[in-house]
């Protein structure tokens, strides 16, 4: 009898509250919870909305330039971009320099690793206070699997230096996303274990010093996350011969080891970073926008 009572109690415990745990009903699996809750009606679309729509259809990336609390949480501080900057930025940087050539030249990498959302930030990322100076290009936004974001859109310029810097930084930020998605790997973190400069040490290092220590630049020696991302950044920015030359000059086995790891990791995802460099160099420097 006593056992029966216990059994009934346990049963009630298990099933009793089930319904109430889903007070709004069962989760509807056909609903895309990642899409925006309130879609802007077509009657309100401007030129950029039409452009974003065609980019989404062509490349599967939703470009976001208008902020709502669904885009920006209460604990993050980004400034929305100015419309007259966001429009040419989307046309030139996102469409012509990033997505189109990537899809054409590296379809496997494009298909597997392109985020489904991209957020434009007018200024840079403020970590704690919206009124203080900020410099981070995309940190905080890019620790998510499905969305990438870039700061500095209000500075948009068709000057080649700006375009090159920005697209290289975009691949750097994207590397953070890859890092979060798959991990840098156990072995990558062991190469320079105990040799990182930390927050206080990295800014005083010259590139040559950093390379001798096993990092591409001072900032790469800040922490393993930036070490990984700066590896990608440097392979996108510089040619294969430049990279190999620096490895020789630096005499750093760590630098070479990590370079090979990151290069191979990206090869496995369908992109040879040296070829990506050639592509980026070509779309930035051989075309006038």
């Amino acid at each position, binding site marked *: 009898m006593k056992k029966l009572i216990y059994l009934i109690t346990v049963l009630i415990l298990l099933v009793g509250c089930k319904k109430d745990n889903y007070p709004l009903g069962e989760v509807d699996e056909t609903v895309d919870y990642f899409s925006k809750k309130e879609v802007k009606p077509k009657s309100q679309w401007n030129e950029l909305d039409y452009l974003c729509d065609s980019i989404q259809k062509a490349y599967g990336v939703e470009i976001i330039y208008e902020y709502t609390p669904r885009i920006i949480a209460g*604990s993050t501080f980004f400034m929305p971009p100015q419309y007259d900057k966001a429009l040419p930025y989307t046309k030139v940087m996102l469409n012509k320099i990033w997505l189109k050539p990537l899809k054409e030249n590296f379809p496997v990498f494009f298909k597997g690793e392109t985020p489904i959302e991209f957020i434009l930030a007018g200024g840079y990322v403020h970590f704690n206070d919206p009124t203080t100076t*900020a410099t981070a290009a995309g940190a905080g936004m890019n620790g998510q699997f499905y969305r990438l974001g870039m700061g500095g859109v209000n500075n948009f310029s068709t000057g080649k230096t700006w375009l090159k810097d920005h697209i290289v930084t975009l691949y750097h930020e994207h590397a953070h996303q890859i890092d979060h998605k798959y991990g840098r790997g156990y072995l990558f973190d062991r190469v320079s274990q105990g040799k990182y400069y930390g927050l206080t040490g990295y800014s005083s290092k010259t590139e040559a010093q950093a390379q001798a220590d096993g990092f591409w630049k001072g900032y790469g020696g800040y922490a393993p996350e930036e070490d990984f991302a700066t590896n990608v950044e440097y392979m996108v920015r510089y040619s294969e011969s430049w990279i190999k030359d620096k490895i020789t000059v630096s005499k750093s086995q760590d630098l070479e080891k990590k370079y090979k790891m990151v290069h191979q990791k990206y090869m496995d995802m369908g992109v040879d970073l040296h070829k990506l460099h050639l592509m980026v160099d070509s779309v930035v420097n051989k075309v006038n926008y």
Partner: protein
Amino acid sequence: MKKVFYNLIIVASLLMLITSCEKDNISNGYFDANLERQEKVAQEAKKVLASSETGWVMMAKVGLNSEVYTPIVLKFDTVKNRVFVKTVYGETAETESFFRITNGTGAPQLIFTSGSIMSTLYRIGTQASDITDHMYNIVGVSADTVAIQCYRSGKVYAKEGGVIYKMFKRPKDWKWADGEIYFDMSSPGFTQNVAGVSGNMKIEYINNPSKNKTFETIWSTVAPTNLATMQNGFPFQISRNIGTGGFKNPYYFYLKFPYTTTTNYDVSPAMSNNVMSFYPQSGYTSNLTYMNYFINTYNIHYLTCKSVIRTGNNVKMEFEAYDVKGNVSVKAQYDNLK
């Protein structure tokens, strides 16, 4: 005895089980029965915002030693979701700015979704205004008032909800916020009998006439090379502060005023939608010194031009500045004949 004790525990747990689930049922019942409520409130807010042809006014408090509030005139085009912003710091640029009214959670929200003067003021911080977000909860709507509250109150860990602005319809006689520019030191037609002429300026404080002041002044134009340097110090532009934007490059002029008790010196106000703006520039020490001295002495940071009357060689101008409710609290007169 032991058995009774066990049974008691079982009964007590059952009771707890049954009652502990009740809370959810109560709170959700209301929302289930009022699915349209949020939609309705948001629609109502939209209708009211569109109802004022001349727009709505937010009065923002500044961090400067000024007793007047910064008026921000917002005109909402609810068909295209465009917002047109005019304020006293500089002339509004041509770029488009957008807003959205969303259902929000609990209250509908008014959000300045793209970069605009509104996000610029949020970025600049307390010196220019007490705005702490570009997203607002709409906390009250009536035929002539829309009360909005900044969604965030400042930096991380600060409490939820900032200042509440009771927006009112733009007064019809705020001609400065209309399209026509009639007060413009960059225009040769305007500067005739004004530039280089020794005139008088009188500042009146409506609630404190004992503070009234009169001083001699000379207004003069700025040479192009100097102007470029001064424009470089305009704090609301992208090259100074990347999160900002929405203003045109301003025109500055020189306004002579008594600096300390013995010398006269130029302060350089910026022209802005028929307003002269006494907002300190960034990065130039001498400008900061004189501008701050001017603000601290007269306790104003702008003067909107109400009228320019020319009779022969005589030019008279009337100016005003407003309190938190948009009432005139400071008046000023310029007369080119001392």
